[in-house]
């Protein structure tokens, strides 16, 4: 197998984008789930969203729980990400045309590896939470199915960040399907990176690499 590109999957020049997305994510969770807001009223209605809201409140509470171990906080955010995002939709989008040519087994293995990868990337950055706040600036429908919620994140450590959340509301079950920070879409960025890996590697190669990334162990005492 050809050696993979040295940099891939959210690395070269991207840590900053990822970091901003995570800050935005944490702040929006605080805003959507932690306090009443325009976004919460529009996006959150019905039984399924009450369930998500409850999970969100638990996660925000845990973010503010002193003495809870880092790994436990990461595990709680993980659970929230699973509830809040449409990981299957994002996973398919990111794989692009390769999704259709994959065997059912490959699709299932890829999806497992991809969601683990995304969950690890985002939850492992939780430790950077430092009192960011989020304000909903505006919202508008996008297409038939989606809402875009524009937000501004104020942070103690630097200039504010503009983040736009694309939320698909189907069957009263709102799910985040993309985040754009300063106009850069996370899903599109990730899709471009995977495409460049797949130019040189098989889909199985991509899956193995995603697995290896998420199989790494955490800091040790």
């Amino acid at each position, binding site marked *: 197998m050809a050696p993979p590109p*040295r940099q891939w999957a959210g*690395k070269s020049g991207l840590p900053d984008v990822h970091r901003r997305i995570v800050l935005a994510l944490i702040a929006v969770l605080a805003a959507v789930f932690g306090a009443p807001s325009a976004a919460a009223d529009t996006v959150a209605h019905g039984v399924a969203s009450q369930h998500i809201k409850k999970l969100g409140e638990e996660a925000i509470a845990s973010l503010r729980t002193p003495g809870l171990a880092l790994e436990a906080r990461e595990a709680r955010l993980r659970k929230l990400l699973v509830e809040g995002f449409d990981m299957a939709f994002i996973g398919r989008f990111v794989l692009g045309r390769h999704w259709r040519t994959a065997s059912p087994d490959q699709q299932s293995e890829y999806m497992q590896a991809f969601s683990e990868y995304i969950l690890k990337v985002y939850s*492992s950055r939780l430790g950077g939470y430092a009192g960011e706040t989020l304000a909903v600036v505006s919202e508008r429908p996008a297409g038939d199915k989606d809402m875009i919620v524009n937000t501004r994140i104020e942070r103690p450590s630097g200039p504010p960040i503009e983040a736009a959340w694309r939320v698909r509301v189907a069957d009263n079950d709102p799910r985040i399907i993309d985040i754009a920070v300063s106009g850069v879409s996370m899903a599109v960025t990730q899709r471009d990176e995977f495409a460049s890996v797949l130019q040189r590697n098989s889909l199985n190669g991509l899956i193995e*690499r995603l697995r*290896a990334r998420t*199989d790494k*162990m955490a800091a040790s005492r």
Partner: protein
Amino acid sequence: MTGVRVPRRLTAALALALLAASPARADFEAGWEAYQRGDFAAALAAWRPLAAAGDARATYNLGVLYDEGKGVVRDDAKAVELWRHAADKGFAPAQHNLANSLIAGDGVAADYREALAWMHRAADQGLARSQYTLGKMYAYGLGVARDPAQAVGWIRKAADSGDVRAQYNLGKMHRDGEGVARDLGQSASWFRRAAERGYAQAQAALARRYAAGEGVARDPVQAMMWTVLAARQGLERADAQRRSFAAQMSPDDIAQAEKLADRWRPRP
């Protein structure tokens, strides 16, 4: 007692080492507490001198900070370098992570053969996660010829140590007769072990065993309960399965299964 003459310089070195031991431990702990608080810069500052003095665990932890970009700009090559130092000293988690960087090609050219060698060393030290990954390398033929029997052997070791992914995989291997005799009873019992710990894939697989009555007595309510638990964790396949089971069940049985799922708690 004749006694052994210890050179004075060595005695002094030993005394120094003993003296140094507890402050080093205190520094390590200070780093650990900072890490847990999310103050990664402070963790880095505490661990860096220990790593420079040759402490394998501190060196490994520094590698994790570089790999995840915590308190530093993310630098995969630096992480690999640090893990290699700690791995050479025999620190199993460093051997495991170095092997994974070599599989992924993170910060180093991908090299399955070298990855296999490091994964072997960590697995030989009893690290369940490494035993599992090593088993998968034999199963896929990564860095070595495909060897289903070796694969089962290593995955079984990891499963016995409680690795849920290994337990699930062993369930599949027994179900499919892959590297081991086909045995549906064994298969269901390994799926159950991982399912009871909360592993979604195993919950969905156990649900199918109950639905088909393969390796367990057929039980639609149990099948529904397990697939509901897996679907609640976001497993798409389980969600589809839930709908297809529901089409063949009475509302009372579905409600009963949902109630069981609400009450269910993972085994620690």
